[in-house]
């Protein structure tokens, strides 16, 4: 490594005048502000090291100064040197640090080098000063070369990133970060700033803890099974400013769970997630609305929460006895220790939960007696308030310590209780208020384009036939198509321009929640899938061989024999299954009119989205190759196509996110969209190709005055598809547009959906009808 080589060079005793020591002291004479700090560091180091070592160190400082590292970086280096020297009496790691910081400074700038030096003490604490630390430097150096902008974010979060404690984990993490963003700087920074779920997920995985994401499906099914109501589970989108969430929180109908429960691993963590989710859902299912906060003091609120928790759990355990086993392991308070409010409350919680628990404390005993006395009214939430207020007074008068800022509810599976309160208008963080910033974050995310669809590794060359265009709002030109001129009966070549617009990633949970609502439909479609997937078996009669005798053929043969004719030897029966070889492309109209709201409050686009999600889920399970494209246009120069799912990629959560990110706008230039769809599906190798267009009216665009022109053009396009062996079907929403669609696709290939709410079911039915042909 060149760092090491240069280090040895510095160790060679230099001439007095030309020595690094000399030069650095001379340099410092000119720097008023830096001098005292430098002096302090120098004096400190001179206690530990001899002259030649100091000379080498001075050389490292000079190197840093020569790469214009700036005062902040030099100070960071001196600080790091002082700390390190005191511990270890070794100069080599300091020289390496200086050299690497200089390298980083060259590649990523002074700020990054400073940040790296500031991160050094953490890395030293984790890795020591041996080879692991050298590897750490190498990885940071690599990061500086490949992702200069990410060094500072990574260094700022180094304590969290290094939490797993092994250098391998750190190397993996950085490699994953570089790969994850594939050249998109903003995404990369978000990754190293730990704003990306995936980044936190990686760290948590290396820590051995179970993340919410890993257990979400199971957790949801578990809670659904308990009370029959699918829970709305979310994890906390923790940003950096926030301390990691330690307890569950209920916000309106949402249950927010910590991303991980720290320090709990493996099956224990899964069990804790279940305990927490079951407790929170019990509040939502068995609780009765919010408590008005009124003039209650924090301590009283905490106690009302405690009693309400006990009340809800008592109710829940009456229904499902075994829940006791789920929650019991976390009640670990013992009747001893310091008498402080949190411990007393944990003891009370245990006393109310566990009848066998013995505790002589008068406060605990009183709480227990009051709760037992109220058991006949256990269904009434008012008892929580009554008992909680009284106990809160008692505890207040006992003058035990209660710090509302550091109070964390115990046991660990219980929720923070904020979701049970109505804080009125000028509210501190109640459910709704927590909700708002989360939505705001969601909106911001939607604005950021989904990085992995474009921008190939920063090199900026657009793919496809069109000339490279800066990837702006209008997207990259990918094709030009002709359009039919109805008046003159000719095709205008290269008339329309298709641009690929990067999909915006929305929140896939929005769609998942909608799918949950449509569970009846979904399971019906699921059965259709099963029916189709197995493949139809066709029975073949009168075969030369088979697994069974074709009784009718055998009879005919017998009769033929008796009347002296030659019998037909094909007297067997066999069966074969039909394989489907079908590719489908769904073309979704997202023009302005899909913004209209239906009576239910959902927009037409919402319904389209749900319909597509249901069908896509089914097609994904079937294994049929399919693609999802959305289109809108703003004049002939700007027909925008957005790929939600290409034929090559699997249908996964990212596709759902892109589907969720669809937004209404602009017009419907159907003909061009059809031509492009034909081109896209033309690349697939399936025997049968199907384009299904989802539209809410007839074609239109801002630069065409007579919509009939576009209808005629679309008809030509549909015919063109047919000639290349692609079947085009139109699914028309609402009352209007039927005439046009009949003209374009033909009556047999048009499906009218008058009640837009029916679309999800009808669309899937259409697909399965077509798929069976």
């Amino acid at each position, binding site marked *: 490594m060149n760092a090491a080589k240069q280090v040895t060079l510095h160790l060679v005793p230099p001439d007095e005048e030309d020595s690094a020591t000399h030069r650095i002291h001379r340099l410092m004479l000119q720097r008023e502000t830096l001098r005292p700090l430098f002096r302090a560091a120098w004096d400190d180091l001179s206690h530990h090291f001899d002259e030649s070592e100091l000379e080498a160190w001075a050389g490292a400082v000079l190197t840093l100064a020569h790469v214009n590292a700036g005062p902040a970086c030099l100070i960071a280096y001196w600080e790091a040197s002082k700390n390190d020297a005191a511990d270890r009496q070794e100069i080599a790691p300091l020289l390496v640090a200086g050299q690497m910081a200089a390298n980083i400074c060259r590649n990523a700038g002074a700020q990054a080098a400073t940040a790296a030096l500031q991160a050094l003490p953490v890395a030293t604490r984790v890795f020591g000063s041996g080879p692991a630390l050298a590897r750490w430097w190498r990885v940071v150096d690599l990061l500086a070369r490949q992702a200069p902008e990410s060094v500072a974010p990574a260094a700022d979060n180094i304590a969290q990133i290094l939490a797993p404690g092994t250098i391998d984990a750190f190397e993996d993490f950085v490699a994953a970060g570089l790969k994850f963003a594939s050249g998109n700087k903003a995404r990369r920074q978000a990754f190293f700033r730990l704003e990306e779920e995936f980044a936190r997920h990686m760290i948590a995985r290396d820590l051995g803890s179970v993340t919410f994401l890993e257990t979400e*499906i*199971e*957790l*949801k*099914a*578990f809670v*659904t*099974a*308990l*009370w*029959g109501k*699918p829970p709305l589970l979310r994890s906390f989108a923790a940003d950096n400013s926030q301390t990691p969430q330690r307890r569950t929180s209920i916000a309106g109908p949402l249950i927010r769970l910590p991303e991980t429960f720290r320090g709990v691993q493996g099956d224990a963590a899964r069990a804790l997630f*279940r305990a927490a989710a*079951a407790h929170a859902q019990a509040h939502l299912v068995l609780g009765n609305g919010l408590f008005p906060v009124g003039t209650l003091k924090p301590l009283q609120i905490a106690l009302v929460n405690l009693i309400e928790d006990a009340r809800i759990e008592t109710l829940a355990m009456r229904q*499902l*006895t*075994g*829940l006791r*086993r*789920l929650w019991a392991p976390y009640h670990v308070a013992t009747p001893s220790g310091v008498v402080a409010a949190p411990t007393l409350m944990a003891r009370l919680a245990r006393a109310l939960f566990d009848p066998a628990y013995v505790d002589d404390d008068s406060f605990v005993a009183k709480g227990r007696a009051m709760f037992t006395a109220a058991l006949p009214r256990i269904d009434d939430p008012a008892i929580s308030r009554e008992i909680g207020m009284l106990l809160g007074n008692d505890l207040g008068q006992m003058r035990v310590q209660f710090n509302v800022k550091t109070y964390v509810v115990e046991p660990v599976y219980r929720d923070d209780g904020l979701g049970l309160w109505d804080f009125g208008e000028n509210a501190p963080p109640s459910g709704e208020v927590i909700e708002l910033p989360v939505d705001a974050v969601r909106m911001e995310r939607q604005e950021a384009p989904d990085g992995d669809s474009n921008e190939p590794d920063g090199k900026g060359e657009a793919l496809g036939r069109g000339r490279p265009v800066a990837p702006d709002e209008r997207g990259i030109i990918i094709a030009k198509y002709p359009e039919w001129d109805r008046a003159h009966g000719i095709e205008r070549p290269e008339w329309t321009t298709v641009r690929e617009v990067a999909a915006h990633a929305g929140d896939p949970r929005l769609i998942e929640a909608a799918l*949950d609502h449509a*569970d*009846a439909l*979904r*399971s*019906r479609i*699921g*059965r*259709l899938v*099963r*029916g*189709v997937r197995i493949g139809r*078996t066709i*029975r073949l009669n009168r075969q030369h061989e088979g697994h069974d005798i074709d*009784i*009718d053929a*055998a*009879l005919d043969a*017998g*009769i033929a024999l*008796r009347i002296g004719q030659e019998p037909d030897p094909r007297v067997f029966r066999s*069966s074969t299954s039909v394989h489907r070889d079908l590719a489908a492309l769904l073309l979704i109209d997202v023009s302005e009119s899909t913004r209209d709201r239906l009576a239910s409050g959902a927009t037409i686009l919402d319904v389209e989205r749900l319909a597509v999600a249901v069908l896509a889920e089914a097609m994904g399970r079937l294994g049929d190759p399919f693609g999802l494209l959305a289109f809108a246009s703003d004049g002939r120069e700007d027909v925008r196509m957005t790929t939600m799912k290409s034929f090559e990629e699997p249908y996964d959560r990212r596709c759902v996110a892109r589907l969720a990110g669809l937004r209404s706008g602009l017009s419907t230039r159907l003909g061009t969209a059809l031509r492009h769809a034909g081109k896209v599906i033309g690349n697939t190798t399936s025997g049968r190709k199907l384009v299904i267009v989802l539209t809410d009216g007839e074609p239109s665009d801002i630069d065409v005055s007579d919509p009939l022109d576009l209808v005629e053009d679309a008809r030509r396009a549909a015919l063109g598809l047919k000639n290349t062996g692609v079947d085009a079907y139109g699914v028309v929403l609402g009352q209007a547009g039927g005439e046009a669609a009949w003209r374009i696709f033909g009556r047999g290939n048009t499906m009218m959906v008058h009640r837009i709410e029916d679309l999800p079911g009808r669309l899937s*039915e259409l697909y*399965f009808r077509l798929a*069976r042909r």
Partner: protein
Amino acid sequence: MNLDAYRIADEPYYQPLGHEIETFQAAYAERLPVMLKGPTGCGKTRFVEHMAWRLGKPLITVAAHEDMTAADLAGRYLLEPQGTVWHDGPLTLAVRHGAICYLDEIVEARQDTTVVIHPLTDARRILPLEKHNEIVPAHGDFQLTISYNPGYQSAVKDLKESTKQRFVAIDFSYPPPTTEAAIIVRESGTDEDLAGILVAIAQRSRNLQGHGLDEGASTRMLIHAGRMVRAGLPLDVAVQSSIVLPITDNPDIRAALSDAIQACLP
């Protein structure tokens, strides 16, 4: 011909949940065809047996399958040393000699097969046997009953509208908890506490219907679990082997269901 082999001697246990016995009796009195709808294992077949016993009529059951042809129902010529001999199918047998013909899971059969029942299920009450060149008028005691699981079958396999509209329908579903527990006690010989737990477990699995499971645990499944316990298996093992494992192959759902079941155990 004697249909004694098809008669049911002892009363099959059936616990009525609503007016299904009266409905069936009325339909039988008018010789109207009946359609039994409901999820699997909720007692449709048992109900038909019970009614056949109650009415004192023979019961001919045909389980429909994908390959079933009209000939399989109506009959065909067979070859014997003397020449061809016509052999009545199960449906013809019931029509000719007066039995209740029960076509189980009718939608499984091919659609062209199901149309042979059309002339039997309207005012004509006849069965034309084209190949035999015969028209069989239905015996006075003949009645047709079909069963149909709306959850299980797929829309592609749905009954034709022209078939559906010929039937009087009785809807079956899972019994209310106390009744279901009583049924389990009766059928598996377990005690009431255990039956109560099994019903609670079933409820957990039914909650997952549409959220990971296509159908929840049936009453039949619970009876099986009860019998496994009676045969000496510990409850959790019995539940695992007769409910959780058969019902799903998805590991997440399986784990969730097992945990939810744990919440029901004392």
